[in-house]
């Protein structure tokens, strides 16, 4: 929470001026009862006459007008500070999310991050805006009224001194108790939302199992829990206004009584009693406003905490020098006994992998579902950091590399073929914003994607968000081209030819081999045919290397590889 305030710093002036002008406005409001008292005492009782009353009424209008000007100024500064703060915070949040480690993104989840940077932040904006406008105003009016009461009559004003602490205790008490209760209401609501969403996404399964009635019952129970919680908070916060009302009116009763005695003694006038009464009434109005404000602020604070929590998530670790290893410098990529255990996982996802890859070599990675193939290649760009052993690129530990220059060397084609809204060219330039036409053409040709671009109407054809207007195979080839545009030293194809037919897949592999800059290529696949021509194949099982070698060697020596191969080829041979 406190950390968030640093984003308010450039708006220090506005955040001081805003409440200040609000206070000015309140001060003018505080003068009003004095003017009314003057009308009564001097104008009516004192016999100053009609002219005086008119003058005083004009002063009331003038006070109102000056109050208006102050208030508008205050609104302006408050809005400027709140919007400016939110803008900066949003930018910082976006920037921070872009540095979160993969592991953090995995465990936090994208959808929460999106909610926090959008709706949570909007709540904070309106909360801050309200706070700047009103939070200081109400206590100021309360204390101001007390001080003004002292100027009218010190002894009567003691009732203010008695009432205010009681009011503060009641206000703070209700707030302190209801904030955690509100938070619990929110979490009950979240649970209800989760339940509804789940029911929607799983509708076929739930209906197939005939679970409708049970679902309705479960939902109703959860709903009842929410309602009970809401009523509990409601009963409690319903106390606030009546209690305040009673306290203030008790003070008014005492005030009138004291006032009567003082007037009787000739110490103060009737107008003064009216003024004191008016001040007490002003306090009541302010406190009711304050109660509503507190609810908004409570919500905003809860949201601010959620945002803070994101900002406190650890960024990707900064590069740190690691002892250089004995691995030979001519290796593009070396895994040295590398292991990775995800946070909170029961076992290593990748364990004790040792492997060298030289420039121009193609490495096949194969293995079953969840055997650690993707995890293994994700260690190279340091998306995840090895928890044991090390991974070297050009002989240097990836942890010592500057992250961006490391990734600059790597072209990654992810499993899920994602393109972004924009033109085809925009998408390709993601790989290298300064790529020449010739580079783009070569990349497209290698990725077997030239004809797609032609068919879609050239490089300036539009791609919709997520690449919805392209087929799976088309997207896949374009994502390969995107990776090639940067002429990467290391190319990683993570199961990224699954949507390609065998002929295209083969043509792609041939084209990759003839690339003039001889990248080291990692091909991750479940299909033996995609990797059987690789220089070396690593077979993973449960995160461990079950075998490393060429296709022929592995067929000979690796039982797991043989099984995978047979499951895909033998039967089809038999069938033919």
């Amino acid at each position, binding site marked *: 929470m406190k950390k968030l305030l640093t984003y308010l710093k450039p708006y220090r002036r506005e955040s001081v001026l805003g409440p200040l002008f609000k206070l000015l406005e309140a001060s003018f409001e505080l003068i009003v009862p004095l003017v009314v008292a003057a009308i*009564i005492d001097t104008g009516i009782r004192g016999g100053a006459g009609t002219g005086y009353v*008119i003058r005083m009424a004009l002063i009331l209008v003038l006070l109102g007008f000056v109050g208006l000007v102050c208030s508008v100024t205050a609104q302006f500064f408050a809005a400027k500070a709140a919007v400016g703060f939110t803008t900066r915070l949003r930018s910082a949040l976006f920037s921070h999310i872009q540095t979160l480690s993969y592991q953090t993104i995995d465990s936090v989840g994208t959808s929460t991050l999106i909610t926090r940077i959008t709706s949570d932040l909007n709540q904070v904006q309106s909360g801050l805006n309200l706070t700047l406008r009103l939070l200081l105003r109400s206590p100021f009016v309360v204390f101001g009224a007390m001080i003004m009461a002292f100027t009218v009559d010190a002894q009567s004003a003691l009732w203010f001194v008695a009432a205010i602490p009681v009011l503060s205790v009641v206000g703070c008490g209700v707030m302190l108790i209801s904030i955690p209760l509100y938070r619990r209401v929110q979490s009950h609501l979240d649970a209800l939302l989760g339940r509804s969403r789940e029911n929607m996404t799983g509708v076929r*399964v739930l209906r197939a199992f005939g679970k409708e009635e049970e679902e309705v019952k479960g939902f109703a129970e959860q709903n009842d829990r929410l309602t009970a919680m809401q009523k509990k908070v409601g009963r409690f916060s319903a106390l606030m206004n*009546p209690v305040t009302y009673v306290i203030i009116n*008790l003070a*008014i009763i005492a005030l009138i009584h004291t006032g*009567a005695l003082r007037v009787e003694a000739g110490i103060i006038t009737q107008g003064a009693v009216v003024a004191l009464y008016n001040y007490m009434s002003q306090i009541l109005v302010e406190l009711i406003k304050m109660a509503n404000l507190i609810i908004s602020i409570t919500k905003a604070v809860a949201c601010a905490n959620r945002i803070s929590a994101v900002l406190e998530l650890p960024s990707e670790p900064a590069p740190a020098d690691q002892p250089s290893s004995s691995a030979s410098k001519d290796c593009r990529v070396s895994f040295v006994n590398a292991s990775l255990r995800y946070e909170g996982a029961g076992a290593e996802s990748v364990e004790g992998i040792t492997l060298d890859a030289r420039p121009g070599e193609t490495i096949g990675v194969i293995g*079953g579902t969840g055997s650690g193939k993707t995890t293994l290649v994700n260690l190279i760009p340091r998306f995840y950091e090895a928890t044991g052993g090390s991974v070297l690129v050009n002989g240097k530990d990836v942890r010592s590399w500057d992250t961006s220059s490391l990734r600059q060397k790597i072209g990654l084609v992810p499993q899920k073929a994602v393109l972004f809204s924009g033109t085809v060219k925009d998408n390709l330039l993601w790989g290298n914003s300064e790529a020449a036409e010739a580079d783009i053409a070569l990349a497209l040709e290698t990725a077997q994607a030239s004809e797609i671009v032609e068919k879609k109407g050239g490089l300036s054809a539009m791609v919709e968000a997520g690449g919805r207007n392209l087929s799976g195979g088309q997207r896949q080839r374009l994502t390969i081209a995107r990776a090639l545009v940067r002429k990467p030293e290391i190319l990683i194809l993570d199961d990224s030819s699954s949507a390609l037919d065998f002929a295209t897949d083969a043509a792609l592999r041939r084209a990759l081999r003839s690339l003039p800059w001889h990248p080291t290529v990692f091909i991750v696949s479940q299909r033996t045919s995609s990797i059987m021509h690789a220089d070396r194949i690593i077979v993973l099982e449960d995160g461990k290397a079950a075998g490393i070698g060429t296709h022929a060697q592995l067929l000979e020596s690796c039982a797991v590889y043989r099984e995978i191969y047979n499951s895909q080829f033998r039967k089809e041979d038999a069938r033919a």
Partner: protein
Amino acid sequence: MKKITLAPGTVKKVLQVLRPYKITALLSILLSAVYVALSLYVPVLIGRAIDLILGPGNVDLKAIVQLLVTVGIVVASGAVTQWLINTINNRIVYHVIRDVRNEAFAHLQVLPLSYLDAHPAGDIVSRMIADVDQFADGLLLGFTQLFTGVVTILGTLVFMLSIRASIAAIVVLLTPLSFVVARFIATRTHDMFVLQSKTRGEQTAFIDEMLGNQKVVRAFGHEKENQERFDEINGRLQKASLQAIFFSSLTNPCTRFVNNVVYAAVALAGGLICLATAGAAVPFTVGALSALLSYANQYTKPFNEISGVITELQNALVCAGRVFELLAVPARVPDKEDAVVLQNVEGCVEAHDVSFSYTPGQKLIEHMNLSAEHGQHIAIVGPTGCGKTTLINLLMRFYDVNAGAVTVDGHDIRLCTRKSLRGSYGMVLQDTWLRRGTIRENITMGKPDATEQQIIEAAKAAHAHSFIQRLPNGYDTVIGEDGGLLSQGQKQLLCIARVMLCLPPMLILDEATSSIDTRTEIKIQNAFTSMMQGRTTFIVAHRLSTIREADLILVMKDGRIVEQGNHEQLLNANGFYATLYNSQFAS
């Protein structure tokens, strides 16, 4: 003001959901009237007391104390009434939205899948949660402020008129000015709000795209470009927001200024009348003036609040309308009263001259005939979008046929209870869905009373036991929304275990192993084979190896079954299947 169009009948429906609470609602209204009367009475009493404090030696202390005791009683009763009102209102509102949510959720369970398939889950959920919440806020505000506001205005008016009609007239004539001001500002700022929400939408779309694919962004080191683009939109949003927020926030100070003018006018008129009637038989007293001033404040305040409440209420009604729209979607045809409860199903499934399409006029399945006998394995093959999933939708009666009939053991499935029909099928879909809960809860979904032994056996048969054991809490590991950290393949194994546990007489396997690697698939295949033994099974698969052993292959194209037969027959026929088979094999 923003133009808001309301679905007709929304207000009627709101009253309808309020109906069970009409007695409490009436009570609340009654209490509000009492409360307003009590709270308005206080200034009168105080005014009287002040009139008894004229000057030294001219103070009737005894009468004052009496008046003050009355004030105390009135205030105490007022506070109790107010607390009761608050509690009752909370109760009504929270119960109403609970009812609406329960009704909506129960309605979802009987909505036809055609509706659910056509509407994004996010939208439906937001209607049930966010919109209902907005509705509750509006309703609560309406109850607490709108009603007391109106009563206060009327009550104040009556009290003011009883004190001095001429001054009351001033207040009544001037106050609507604040409405005019508020409306003027609202129309001027409308465009600013539109620009703000448009820019905000643009930014959200950008955030969604870039955070949703953060890993790609990172892999290509595109963070800087993203940040620049984000900051550009952010800058525009800042400008738009500042304008919208600032100009709309002028409403409050401006209406308050109008109120201050009204206040001054009352003070002026009151003061002048005091002076004018000083010697008269019925003088206008200072106490009366102070009461009037206090009323002037009370009278204008609800006006400000009401203009805010009305906007809020309109918004609430729009939100309520969205929920009611959902409730108004016609439910599926209910089970017939004398519907057959399928028991001990043999598994003879037939389709007689079935026609079906999702959108009227767009032909899909036409005159389809099909006959599967007890224990037969029927494979459904064909290119993407050929209607394989549609066939499953019809078998499970997720959708009803337009013409013809599907029968199970000779019963038209439309004459059977849905529960018994669906309970006769075990289904594994390509789209792996798991619920939030423990692994155990997920596996026992179809058979909640399964023993530990049975659960473990099912998991072992599905080759899920070993990975489950490696999870932090084994079978009691809680998996998050939609399977959380499990891989696609692991989720599919759990879906298979789920069906292995209850083993109904018929099976539907829609790409049941699409996310599982070939080696594990072969291992599971044995379990599948024994599971399919003696069970009528429909299999959708891309892998031809799975299809070859089927008793009957349905070759689908453009929604029609173009060929039927077993593998050899179809190959020999040298038709579409042969082409399909050869192209897949050749690739």
